[in-house]
């Protein structure tokens, strides 16, 4: 873990409201596991706390985050300029486990793609990628993953499967003869719930990346907890014991 100084080397609005920001880190991270995240200090006194973002990509001291503008912090972050210098704490949290058995299936909803992008890259050709978004424009969010031949659903039906990503996943799963799957999911809470409902019968192995409001991002404040089925200590820190959890251990 480093509180690294990152210089903005690239900013790109991938789709309207979605930005890709690349930093050169002076002190590079040691090892990054897909699903881990960083806490970014937005360079403005209007934003007090740091903001958490998944590590979208990382290689040789170059860090990429992909984010959606939803509030004050992300708005200001979308306005940083190349050459600006930010504090970036990371890599943080427990990422996805890569050594599991089962055919890997990734499910991402909207900006949730940011959380599984590095995972998809690591897993490579063998993976099935399901991506749900609002409309055809947002399919640009997976344009660098065409080699994985992602299945895309749009809510407005403007491209691919018409409907939400879990309905699309359902069709896929029903077509499978063997059930030896390993699901990795990241997306809005509603999506995670729907996945749970879909998989509960067989309790198909599934890891999910969870979001929660954070203050410290490194386990200091106990502000970011998620309730689990652990009786002794139900509330686990998303930033420390997560953000990736076994779907069957958390209480949604």
């Amino acid at each position: 873990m480093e509180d690294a100084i990152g210089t903005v080397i690239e900013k790109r609005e991938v789709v309207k409201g979605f930005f890709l920001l690349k930093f050169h880190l002076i002190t590079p991270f040691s090892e990054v596991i897909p699903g881990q995240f960083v806490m970014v200090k937005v360079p403005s006194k209007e934003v007090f706390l740091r903001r958490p973002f998944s590590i979208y990509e990382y290689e040789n001291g170059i860090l990429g985050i992909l984010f959606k503008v939803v509030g004050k912090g992300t708005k200001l972050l979308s306005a940083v300029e190349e050459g600006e210098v930010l504090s970036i704490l990371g890599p943080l949290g427990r990422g996805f486990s890569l050594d599991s058995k089962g055919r890997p299936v990734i499910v991402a909803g909207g900006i949730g793609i940011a959380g599984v992008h590095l995972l998809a890259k690591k897993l490579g050709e063998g993976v099935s990628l399901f991506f749900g978004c609002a409309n055809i424009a947002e399919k640009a969010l997976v344009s660098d993953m065409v080699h994985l031949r992602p299945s895309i659903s749009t809510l407005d039906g403007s491209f691919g499967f018409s409907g939400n990503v879990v309905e699309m996943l359902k069709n896929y799963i029903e077509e499978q003869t063997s059930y030896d799957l390993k699901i990795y999911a990241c997306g809005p809470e509603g999506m995670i719930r729907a996945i749970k409902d879909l998989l509960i019968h067989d309790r198909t192995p599934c890891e999910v990346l969870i979001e929660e409001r954070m203050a410290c991002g490194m386990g200091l404040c106990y502000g970011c907890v998620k309730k689990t089925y652990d009786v002794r200590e139900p509330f686990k820190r998303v930033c420390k014991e997560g953000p990736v959890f076994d779907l069957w251990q958390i209480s949604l």
Partner: protein
Amino acid sequence: MADISLNLFGRKLKNPVMNASGTLGYGREIEPLWRVSEMGVYVSKGLSLKPHHGNPTPRVWEVSSGMLNSIGLQNIGIDRFLEEYLPYFSETKTPVIINFFGFTVEEYVGCAERIKDDENIFALEMNLSCPNIKEGGIGFGKDPNMVFNLIKAVKSVTTKPIFAKLSPEVKNIVEIAKSAYEAGSDGLTLINTMPGVAVDIRKGVIPIKGGLSGPAIKPVALKAVYECRKAVPIPILGTGGIMSLEDALSFFMAGAWAIQVGTATFVDPYTIPRIIDGLKGYLEHHGFSSVSEITGITE
């Protein structure tokens, strides 16, 4: 280098800088960045006789120059802390202040009793911001008599020095400080968070009712330190919105013997080591030989 050590209750602390309770986890979480043993004292997360699960989320909310938190005192309980975490501080020779709380006098006393005479435990810090469920839920720290009786009761079961940690949501914090002092409190920690709420105007709801911390409360904390130092002759640990060396100096000058850094660590995890370094430099540069020379220099 100037000597920034502090003699307190017959112990030499390597510096007068601590974390504020509940803002540095169980201690080791920060160690990928710096060592807990760099601080004069590690202050534990709030502990209680029995474990507590805490509140549902959202537990944190950003506001102007600060944050609200409603962690709800989640903790593993005093016994597990002593068993699983304390040995690490002993190994690293880090003096520990145990911050603890209860919802009845018995819970406070019970908790204090568990804290055996471990040499490494430097003192106890009583969080007085909890509601007394046997007295209709009024906060222990709001009533001078309740404060007096509670501290008396705790003092009778422990030989450790006690810091009473006061809430700013009181009529007159000096009156409470005096009660604590008269009951035998060995020191004061000033202040705990200030109760507040936030409104989510998009949803039309109150997402959080919690405690305000950060620079927003600094003037209130400085006032508490300044006034209480004039009213009672016991050491004060100052906390509330300390983000920089300058803030730390403000607290010393207002009357704090040592300071505690809380929320700042979330914004910049290196705040504590930076203040420790800065303090050395400041004393040297200004020709002071110890922090006590600036403690309480304001009239």
